[in-house]
């Protein structure tokens, strides 16, 4: 699965680099020079990596790369389910911002996440939601005066 994933990732990068080369080659020299100078070696490197992934011997030593590692203490099935769950919450947050706007999404998100994902009791959920919303409102809306786009519902209702 991991090898398959790496191959897919290479294909993804090849597509990006290929698209960049194709696009930049049609621009004027001044506009396209730098993207081409970057995209061509990127394409070559990713093709090399693709070749290694397909035909190379298994990588014996990864070498001391500076990078974090994810936990391997959770069963892959459970891990996959949890990954999908978190990304769904994130996507849901963005969707709600689109629909009802940022200020309303904040308390809704905190409430629903604490209540249904973290399974916290009603009272602490309400208290945490109220405090979060209060802080958000005081800091970002009253003090910093951040402008938040209205959601489609507010636009539709003319609010």
């Amino acid at each position, binding site marked *: 699965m*991991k090898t398959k*994933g*790496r191959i897919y*990732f290479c294909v993804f*990068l090849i597509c990006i*680099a290929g698209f960049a080369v194709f*696009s*930049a080659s049609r*621009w*004027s020299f*001044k506009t396209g020079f*730098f*993207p081409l100078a*970057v*995209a061509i*070696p*990127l394409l070559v*490197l*990713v093709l*090399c*990596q693709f070749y*290694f992934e397909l035909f*190379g*011997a298994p990588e014996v*030593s*990864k*070498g*001391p*790369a*500076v*990078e*974090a590692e*994810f*936990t391997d*203490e*959770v069963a892959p099935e459970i*891990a996959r389910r*949890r*990954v999908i769950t*978190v990304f769904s*919450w*994130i996507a849901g*947050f*963005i969707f709600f*911002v*689109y629909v009802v706007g940022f200020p309303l999404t904040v308390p809704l*998100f*905190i409430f629903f*996440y604490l209540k249904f*994902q*973290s399974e*916290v009791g009603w009272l602490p959920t309400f208290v945490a939601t109220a405090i*979060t919303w209060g802080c*958000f409102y005081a800091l*970002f809306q009253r003090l*910093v005066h*951040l*402008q*938040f*786009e209205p959601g489609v519902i507010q636009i539709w209702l003319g609010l």
Partner: protein
Amino acid sequence: MFDAFIDGLFLVLQWKAFSLMLVGMGLGFCVGLLPGIGGAATLALMIPFVFTMSPPEAFAFLLGMHSVAATTGDITSILFGVPGEGLSAATVVDGYPMAKNGEAGRALGAALMSSLVGALIGAIALALAIPIVRPLVLTFGSPELFLLSMIGIACITSLSGLNLRGQIRGFAMGLLGLLLSTIGQERQSGSLRFDMGMMYLWEGLDLVPVLVGVFAIPELVDLAVRGTSIAGERPAENLNRGVMEGIKDTFRHFWLVFRCSAVGVFVGIMPGAGGGVAQWMAYAHAVQSAKGAKDRERFGKGDVRGVLGPGAANNSKEGGDLVPTIAFGVPGSGAMAILLGGFMIMGLVPGPDMLSKHLAVTYSMVWTLVIANIITVVLSLAVLNQLAKVTYIRGGLIIPFVLLLVFVGSYTANGHLADLVVTFCFGVLGYLMVLWGWPRPPLVLGLVLGKLVETYLFISVARYGFAWLGHPLVVVLIVLMLVVIIYPFVREKPAWAGGGD
């Protein structure tokens, strides 16, 4: 000059200036903790308040706030893996793994103490540089600045695995970062590149949503997958001892902290380079300083040196940033450009006057940097133990609040829904990169340096053709760049020679 130096101290210690500095520090502390709302944005918000202040009061207020924001930005980076300031992502790479290893206190202690040392070195550099800055800055034209940026890119060698495939992956990610930096309007001709027909991309990708997505989202996903607290099931460390260990680490690795501070000062002095560059170059230098492959392998998994280097550089660059701002009116970063507005409001003209007629005011800035950082670190150390306990709270209770911080931080970049989508997309990309062993730091380094590289390259070619390649300083910098690329291989020869590729 000595009189002006002492006068500068007394200007800051006047009750009104000192009180305003404390207010600024309080604001900077809060702002530093919130991702996305960096010191520059807060400076812009606070500029209108300085109209009624005298110059020393205004600079005590503004600089107190700005320098503290740089220090406290490391706290969220370490505790939650969310870069406190968009550009301070380098601290996340080792700081957050330390928190996961139950060493949050140690990481926080190290970050704050190295920040203090860095700030002091930056302030000293500013004080010393004032008389000699002119020839130094004028020596560096576009070709030299281009090569300096390329040296930054060359640091990718250190941030990638030292076998063939590791280097391919590292440089591919660096190039991807450079390619992403070309999105939007091309600066010279105004032509649009890779904008996909979206007006949002005309200005290019903002760093904050990208950095927060690439670094914070994967860590949050991992936290959710583990289903534990950030520090997991590890026994609670003796937090007091942890903080003290971090402080001791700063002095155990003092030479490294000093070198990384020097990197920060130097990058700060160079106009346009910005804090992200200083942090990443310092981080790469910290990795290069590892003794052997085994030692190097600890970076990215929670090595305190990976916290000390960026922490020191992040604060020392503030002193460096002020040098060209004060001496020439050429801002070293976005925040300094806003501070320049403060100069104008105060009726001060940056340049020779600041080094003669208003020298006491100039030195009051040096003292503000010193005093504000000392107070912040001392006060922060008192609450670090409590802060570090956050890493033992159940992940399910932390995640929604951190996600909220992530999205508010991203949204402040442009105030556009697309900022959130960019964060999400780069969050997925960052997650897949970690999952499949593609390093994230080179991607960020490429993105941070991309615009600088292109701009300086264009100006160099337009101004000198290719004759600039023969400039003596350019030749020296090319050699230095080659050394940066080759040095890790020479040092690790057995590791990459027998790496299995």
